[in-house]
C-alpha cells in the first residue's frame, strides 16, 4: 500500500509538471501584460514582474484602437453562431427522425465536411465571394464560418435528438402537431444543452478564425481581432506589453463561454471525433 501511495504522488507531480509546461504561453502572456515598457525591453527577460502595471489594459484602447476590431469580431461571431444554430437544428432533426431519399448522401457529405480544410478551398471560396460581390463585407466571413461550423453542429444535434425518445414526437404528431411545431416547441427545450454547445462552438471558431478573415477583408475598420493583432506584430514598433494585454482582452470572451459549457463541448467534440 505504501508503494502505491508513493507512485500516485510521483505521477501527480509528473502531471503537474506537464500541465505547467503546457501553460507556459499563458503565463508569459499574463506576465508580460503587466510589465512596464522598460521592463519588457530589459535583457535578459525577467520571469517575475518587478511591478504590476494594470494600466496597460487601459492604454491599449488609445494605442491600438481595438474598438472597431472588437465590434467586427462580435458581429461576425454572433451572426455565425446564430445562423449555425438556425440551420443545423432543423437539418439535424430531419436527419435523426426521417428516412428520406438522399439521407445517406447528405450524411456522407457532412462527414466529408468535417475533414475539409479551409486552405484547399480558400481560392475557390474567394472566387465565389468575389462573384457574389461580398468581398470586404461581414458576409464574406459569416458565410464560410457558418459553413465550416455546420458539419459538427448538425452531427451534434443529430446525436442529441437520437438520445431523445421518439415516442414524444409521435404522440405530439397524433395530437395534430406539425413537425415544425414539434421541433421548436417540444424538442428544442429538451436538447437545449446541445443547442447552447453548438452556439458556443460556432462562436469560438468564428472568433478565432484567421485565414478567411485575413483574406476577404481589406478595410481596417472591418477587420477582426486576430487579423488586427497579427498586423501589429508585423509593425516594427509593437510593444509586447500592449500586445499581450490585447490578447488577454481578446481571449476573455471565448474563454468564459468555453468554461460555461466545457463539459458538454468536450463530450461533443470527443465523441464527434471518435465516431465520425
Amino acid at each position, binding site marked *: 500500500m505504501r508503494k502505491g501511495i508513493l507512485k500516485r504522488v510521483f505521477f501527480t507531480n509528473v502531471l503537474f509538471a506537464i500541465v505547467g509546461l503546457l501553460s507556459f504561453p499563458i503565463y508569459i502572456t499574463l506576465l508580460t501584460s503587466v510589465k512596464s515598457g522598460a521592463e519588457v525591453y530589459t*535583457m*535578459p527577460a525577467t520571469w517575475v514582474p518587478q511591478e504590476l502595471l494594470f494600466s496597460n489594459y487601459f492604454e491599449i484602447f488609445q494605442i491600438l484602437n481595438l474598438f472597431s476590431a472588437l465590434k467586427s469580431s462580435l458581429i461576425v461571431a454572433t451572426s455565425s453562431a446564430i445562423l449555425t444554430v438556425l440551420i443545423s437544428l432543423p437539418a439535424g432533426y430531419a436527419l435523426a427522425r426521417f428516412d428520406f431519399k438522399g439521407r445517406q448522401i447528405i450524411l456522407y457529405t457532412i462527414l466529408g465536411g468535417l475533414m475539409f480544410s479551409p486552405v484547399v478551398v480558400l*481560392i*475557390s471560396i474567394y472566387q465565389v465571394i468575389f462573384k457574389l460581390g461580398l468581398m470586404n463585407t461581414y458576409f464574406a466571413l459569416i*458565410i464560410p464560418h457558418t459553413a465550416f461550423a455546420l458539419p459538427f453542429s448538425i452531427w451534434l444535434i443529430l446525436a442529441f435528438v437520437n438520445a431523445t425518445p421518439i415516442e414524444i414526437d409521435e404522440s405530439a404528431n397524433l395530437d395534430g402537431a406539425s413537425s415544425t411545431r414539434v421541433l421548436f416547441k417540444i424538442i428544442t427545450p429538451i436538447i437545449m444543452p446541445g443547442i447552447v454547445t453548438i452556439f458556443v462552438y460556432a462562436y469560438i471558431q468564428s472568433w478565432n478564425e484567421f485565414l478567411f478573415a485575413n483574406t476577404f477583408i481589406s478595410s481596417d475598420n472591418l477587420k477582426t481581432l486576430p487579423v488586427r493583432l497579427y498586423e501589429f506584430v508585423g509593425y516594427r514598433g509593437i510593444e*509586447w506589453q500592449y500586445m499581450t494585454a490585447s490578447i488577454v482582452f481578446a481571449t476573455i470572451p471565448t474563454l468564459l463561454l468555453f468554461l460555461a459549457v466545457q463539459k458538454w463541448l468536450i463530450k461533443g467534440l470527443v465523441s464527434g471525433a471518435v465516431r465520425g
Partner: protein
Amino acid sequence: MLAGQKYYWPYLAIAPAAFLLALVFGVPVFQVLLTSFSKTNNAGDVEGFNNFENYTKLFADPMLSVISVNTVVWTLGVLVPATIFSLFIAILLDMNLPGKTVMRIIVFIPWAISFVFVSIIWRYSFDQVFGPLNSLFGIILNRPVEVAWLATPSLAMLSVIWVGITLTIPFTTLVLLAGLQSIPQEIIEAGWCDGASGTKLFHKIKFPFLKPVLVVATLVNLLAIFNSFPIIWTMTGGGPANSTDTFPTYLYRIAFTDYDFGKAGALSFIGLIVLVSISIFYVKKSGTQETF
C-alpha cells in the same frame, strides 16, 4: 423514424444546410479543378483552357520539392511526438489522480484560444534579444544565451514544430482519454485479479481497446497539421529562406502575393487529392457506416 408527416418536410428542413454546404464545399471542388486547367486574371476569373500550363509551371517550380519536403517534416515532426505525449498525458489523467478535473480543463483551454494569439506569444518567447526563452536558458546555463530561434533555418523549423506539438496535444489528449474511459471497468478489474501489472495491463488489455480511437485521432490530426496555416504564417511567414514554407503557406503566397490563381488552383487540386485519399482511408478504417 417518423411517418405520416408531409413528405417534403425533411427536404425543407435540410435545404438551408445543403445550400450552404454546396456553396462552400461543393462548388469549390469543381471550381478548383476548373481553375487549375484555365488561364486566370488577377481577380481569379477563369479565361479559357490553357493546355495544362498551370501544372507544367507548378512541376517546373523548384519550390515544389522544397515545400514537399518541408510539409512532410512539419507534419510528421508534429504528429508523432504530439501523439506520444498525448497518450502519456491521457494515461496520467485516467489514473484518478487528485485535481484531474482541473487538469483536464487546463489541458483543453488552448483549444478555445486563437492559434494566432498563441503563435504571436511564442514568436515573442523565441525572440533572440528580449525573449523569455533565451532568458530561461540563460538562467539554467548561467551565461547569456542569444539563440536566433526563428532566424536560423534549421532552428526555425524546430521552433514551429514545437508550437505545433503544444497546440495538437489538447484535442488529441481528450480523444484518447475518452477512449481510455470507455473501456469496461470489469475487464480491467479481471486483469487486476489475474495479477497483471500496470504495464502488462496496458499492453494486453487497454491498448487493443484504444487502438481504433488512436487510428482516428491520428488521421484527423494528420489532415489538420498538413493543412495548418496560422502557426507558421504568424511565427515565420514561411521563412527564413523558405525553411518553414509548407503547402498552405506557399499556396497562400502564390494566390495572394503573386495573384497566380491558375497555379494556386493546380496546387490546391493536388492538396485536395491528398486530402480525399486520406479521408477515404479514414472513413473505411473507422467504419462510420455503422454509426448511422
